[in-house]
C-alpha cells in the first residue's frame, strides 16, 4: 500500500500479507468517531489480506469505543473471509470481545409505514372497540349496582364509605372555593351591566338561575373530574402495573365489583349533593358582591331569588349532576383499566381521564340544555 491509512487512536501497517493495526492513545467516549471506519473498510476490501492483526503496546485506556471499533472490523473481516487475529490485543479487550457475539445482531422487525387511510380505519375500529368496552362497563356497573343493593356484590362496605368520604367531604373545600368565586364573578358582571338599565334587582335572578341550572353543576363536575376522576384513573393504572388487579382477578374477585362499583357509586351519589352545596355557596358569593355593589337589601335579594328559582330547575340541576358524576367516574375507571403497565402510562391515564371527564361534561350539558328546551324547563 502506498498510503497507510490511520485514524484517531490507530494506524495501519502491512506485515507479511497481514494488515497490522497499531492501536495507540486512549479509547474514551469523547474521542470516538465511527466515520474513521470508512477508510478501514476500503482498506480491507481493496487489499488481499490473510488476516487482520493488532499491536497494542502503545495503547492507553480501554473504553467502549475500542470495542465498537474492533466489533466493526471483526464483522468486516468475517464478511470478507479475512482472519481476525486478536492475539495482539490486551487481555481485557479480548475478554470483552468474547462477550460480543460475532454473528450479526438480530435485525429488528422493520416497521411498514402506515398510510393515512389505514390510520383512519384503525382509529374508527379502536373507537368502536372502546365504545363497546365502555358500554359493557356501564351495563356491568348497572347490573352489579342492582346486585349490590340485594347484597350480592363482592365489595366491602368500608371501601364504599371511604370512597363516599373522599369524593364527598374531602372535596368540600375546593368546591366551595371555586363556587364562591364563580358566584361573586357572576354578580359582579351582572351588577355592572344590569345597573345601566336600572334593573339591579335582577342580579338575584341571574345568580340564582345560573348557579342552580348551570354554573354549580358544571363547575363542580370540572373540579371533580380534575381532582377525583384523574385520581381514580391513576390509582387503577398503578394497580395494573403492580399486578394488584391481576391478584384480585386470580382469586375470583371481580374488579368491577370490588374496585369500580364503590367509586362509581360514590361519585354518582356525591355529585348531586356537592352540586346543592356548590349552588348555595355560589349564591352566597353572589349575594355578598351584590349587596356590596348595589343598593339592595339582603331581604329583597333573597325574596327575589326565591321567586326566580323553581323546584323543576333545582331538580334539573340535581339530575344533571348525577349524570356528570356517573360519566366522570365511569370514564375515569375505564381509562385506568385500559392503561398500560408502565409509570408513563399512569401519568397518561390521569391526564386523559381529566380531559375526557371535562369534555364529556360539556357535551352532556349541551344535550341536557337541548332536552330542557324541548321540555320547556
Amino acid at each position: 500500500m502506498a498510503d497507510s491509512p490511520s485514524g484517531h487512536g490507530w494506524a495501519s501497517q502491512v506485515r507479511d500479507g497481514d494488515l497490522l493495526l497499531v492501536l495507540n492513545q486512549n479509547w474514551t467516549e469523547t474521542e470516538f468517531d465511527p466515520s474513521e471506519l470508512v477508510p478501514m473498510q476500503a482498506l480491507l476490501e481493496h487489499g488481499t489480506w490473510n488476516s487482520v492483526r493488532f499491536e497494542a503496546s502503545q495503547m492507553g485506556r480501554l473504553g467502549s469505543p475500542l470495542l465498537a471499533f474492533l466489533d466493526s472490523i471483526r464483522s468486516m473481516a468475517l464478511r470478507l473471509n479475512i482472519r481476525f487475529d486478536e492475539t495482539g490485543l490486551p487481555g481485557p479487550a479480548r475478554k470483552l470481545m468474547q462477550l460480543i457475539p460475532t454473528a450479526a445482531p438480530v435485525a429488528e422487525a422493520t416497521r411498514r409505514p402506515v398510510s393515512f387511510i389505514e390510520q383512519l380505519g384503525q382509529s374508527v375500529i379502536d373507537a368502536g372497540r372502546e365504545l363497546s368496552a365502555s358500554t359493557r362497563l356501564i351495563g356491568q356497573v348497572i347490573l352489579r349496582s342492582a346486585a349490590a343493593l340485594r347484597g350480592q356484590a363482592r365489595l366491602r362496605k368500608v371501601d364504599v364509605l371511604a370512597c363516599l368520604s373522599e369524593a364527598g367531604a374531602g372535596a368540600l373545600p375546593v368546591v366551595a372555593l371555586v363556587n364562591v368565586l364563580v358566584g361573586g364573578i357572576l354578580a359582579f358582571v351582572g351588577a355592572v351591566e344590569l345597573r345601566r338599565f336600572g334593573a339591579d334587582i335582577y342580579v338575584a335572578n341571574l345568580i340564582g338561575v345560573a348557579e342552580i341550572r348551570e354554573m354549580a353543576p358544571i363547575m363542580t363536575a370540572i373540579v371533580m373530574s380534575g381532582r377525583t376522576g384523574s385520581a381514580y384513573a391513576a390509582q387503577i393504572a398503578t394497580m395494573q402495573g403492580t399486578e394488584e388487579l391481576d391478584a384480585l382477578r386470580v382469586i375470583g374477585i371481580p374488579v368491577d365489583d370490588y374496585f369500580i362499583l364503590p367509586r362509581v357509586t360514590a361519585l354518582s351519589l356525591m355529585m348531586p349533593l356537592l352540586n346543592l352545596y356548590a349552588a348555595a355557596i355560589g349564591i352566597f358569593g353572589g349575594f355578598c358582591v351584590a349587596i356590596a355593589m348595589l343598593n339592595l337589601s339582603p331581604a329583597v335579594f333573597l325574596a327575589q331569588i326565591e321567586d326566580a328559582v323553581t323546584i323543576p330547575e333545582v331538580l334539573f340541576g340535581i339530575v344533571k349532576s348525577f349524570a356528570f358524576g356517573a360519566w366522570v367516574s365511569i370514564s375515569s375507571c375505564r381509562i385506568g383499566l385500559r392503561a398500560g403497565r408502565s409509570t408513563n402510562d399512569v401519568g397518561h391515564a390521569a391526564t386523559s381521564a381529566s380531559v375526557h371527564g371535562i369534555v364529556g361534561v360539556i357535551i352532556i350539558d349541551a344535550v341536557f340544555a337541548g332536552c330542557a328546551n324541548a321540555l320547556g324547563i
Partner: protein
Amino acid sequence: MAAAPNEPKIRVRDLKVSYAANVIQQGVSFEVKEGSIFAVMGASGSGKSTILRAMTGLLRPSGGTVCYGSLDYWSLSDSRREEIGRGFGVLFQGGALWSSMSAAENVALPLQMFTKLAPSSIDALVQVKLSLVGLQSGRDAMPSALSGGMRQRVGLARALALDPQVLFLDEPSAGLDPTSAKRFDDLIRDLRDGFGVTVVMVSHELPSLLGICDDGVFLDADRKTAIAHGAPLALREHSSDPAVQAFMTRATPIAPTHAPTGDANGPH
C-alpha cells in the same frame, strides 16, 4: 485497563446514615480496592442499600466520610459531586429503567447528555453495550415488554454507558433464577476484568457473594453497625460471629425455644 493493585479506590470512615431520627447504620468503615468486587452484605433491612445511597450521593450521611481517592465526597460542592458522580454507574434494584424510553434510548441518554458524540457514534456504542450484556435483540423494546432479567441487563448496560470507574450494583441478581443469576454474576466479573472497573455490590444472595466478591463488609440490623470485614468466602470459613455464620450458612441466628427438633444454629 489494569488497575493498580491494592490501591484503595474508596475509603468509608465512621459512616452514619439515618432517616430523620431513625439511625440505620453507624460507625461503618471500610476500604474498597481499585478493580475489586466489594460486597456490602447483610440481612434484609440491615441498611445495605442506604449505605449505597450515601456512597452514590443520593443520601447525605449524618456523620463520617466517603472518600474517592483523596476527595472527601460529601465535603465537596454540589457541582463537584456531580462531576465525580459521572464516573459512577449505578444499577438499581429491578433496573429502574425509564419507562417512556426504549432499551436503547435508556442506554443512549447518558451519552447524549454528557458527551459530544454524533448520533451515529452513540448508536454504535449503545449497540456494543447492549451486546456486552447479552442483548442482541430487543433494543427497541419498551421496559414494560422486557422480562426481569432483561431489564436488569439493560440497567447494567445503562450503568456502563459512560464507561464508569466505579460500578454500584444494588441487589443485581435478586429475582433472577439461579442460572440467570449465575450468568449475571459471570458478566459482572467479566466486565470488571475487561474494563478494570471497581464494583461495589449490595446483595444478600449467597451464591453471588461467594462466587465473585473479593472483599466485603457485613452489616448487622440489630447492632446497627458493621460487624465483620473480609471476603465472603473467608467470612464463611473463619468468622466467629453468630450472625455472620448464620447468614453465611443460611441458619437461624437465635435458637427458637419452641423448635420441635434439630439444631437451629447448625447449617441447613
